[in-house]
């Protein structure tokens, strides 16, 4: 065998790929489902928190800032292990999928809150004054005038952050979520061949590369727009 043949047999072994592709595809669906849930919950919760913060109710704001800071300062894997291994001992049994979704959803909510809040405060003060001067109330102004402008401003950083956090669904492997990486490492140890890992990497590239390219496009369009 030449070196190249050996390389192919190790990383692109057709036989191994055919045998384990179905289970990796199952992992793809798990990864997609978990990612979608995280994005929907995380973005919605984050926007809601940022809006609540706009009312500047002191105790609520302290709670929101502490939550957002902690979720942004702690490594997600620390939170995942803490919740997944800690809660059963106090009688709360959560599936590994649920733990992964809740933790990463909260992390995305925290980042979204900070990003959207920065957007809300960046909207010109004159927009508040114009709306309030026509008799529109605080909530109406926030939701109809300020928030739409803030969201438009923060789409690029929010997209980047959402991609970075949904990629972390691979951490589910550590607690046994049957995602792409988990299926691949299982297949790798059964087959004694690295091809399943190659397939997993390719699967992630197929899933996330379009999103990464889209976020680059959004960012560049946004920068050009501002100039």
């Amino acid at each position, binding site marked *: 065998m030449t070196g190249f043949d050996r390389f192919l047999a190790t990383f692109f072994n057709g036989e191994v790929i055919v045998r384990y592709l179905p289970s990796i595809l199952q992992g793809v669906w798990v990864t997609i489902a978990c990612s979608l849930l995280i994005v929907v919950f995380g973005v919605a919760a984050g926007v809601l928190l940022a809006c609540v913060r706009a009312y500047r109710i002191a105790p609520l704001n302290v709670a929101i800032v502490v939550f957002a*800071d902690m979720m942004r300062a702690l490594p997600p894997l620390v939170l995942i292990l803490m919740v997944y291994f800690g809660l059963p001992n106090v009688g709360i049994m959560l599936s590994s999928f649920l733990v992964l979704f809740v933790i990463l959803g909260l992390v995305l909510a925290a980042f979204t809150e900070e990003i959207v809040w920065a957007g809300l405060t960046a909207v010109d003060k004159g927009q508040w004054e114009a709306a309030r001067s026509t008799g529109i109330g605080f909530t109406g102004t926030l939701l109809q005038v300020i928030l739409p402008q803030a969201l438009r401003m923060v789409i690029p950083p929010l997209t980047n952050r959402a991609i970075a956090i949904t990629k972390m669904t691979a951490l589910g492997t550590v607690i046994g979520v049957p995602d792409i990486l988990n299926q691949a490492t299982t297949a790798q140890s059964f087959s004694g061949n690295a091809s399943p890992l190659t397939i997993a990497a390719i699967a992630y590239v197929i899933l996330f590369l379009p999103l990464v390219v889209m976020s680059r496009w959004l960012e560049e369009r946004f920068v050009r727009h501002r100039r």
Partner: protein
Amino acid sequence: MDQLLDQFFNLEIMAAAWPTILRGLGMTLLLCLLVIPLGVIGGLAAALTSLSPRRWVRWPAIALVDLFRAIPPLVLLIFVYAGLPFAGIRMSPFVAVAIAFMLNNSAYYGEVLRAGILSVPRGQAEAARSTGMTHAQTMRAVVLPQGVRNVLPDLISNTVEVVKLTSLASVVSLGEMLHAANLARSVTYNASPITMAALVYLILLWPAVRLVSRWQRRIAV
């Protein structure tokens, strides 16, 4: 409530686990000392090549950056650590972590630095070139210092992410802080060691997180 406290804030177990976690913290810091500079240097290379006027330099650079932004770091790490040995390339967990994180971090630092360089008005480079400075001198003495200052909050944010990322090394049994804490958890059947590690991460990273938040707000308004 008592049960929760006992499970997550058991002071006795925390005290017993502290030496182990402290050793782990040492490894975490060592890892940071290695992967942060590597990432910044790799990022600088990525930023400069992805802004090259030559298309055959620029496009491959952008493609590589996007590729490594698309692959989850844990996948990259396991590929390097568990995949490459099949090709006869064996390495210690430490080296595997350094390589995998270097690739991942370079892509992210690269994007931040690229945005920084782009944020410097073209007139700055033109002014420098008009005084006879070379492209390299202009970049080093005029564009980069301004660009780095413009994206300093993002650089700090990214560095926070890099420090958090080192916790993934626990998956390949590198004895950093999370690995140490998780080991203590599995021995004691109690999550308090992980809480303790979490507290250490908070002490390390919360100031940076807060600083960046305040900073960005001041720029935004």
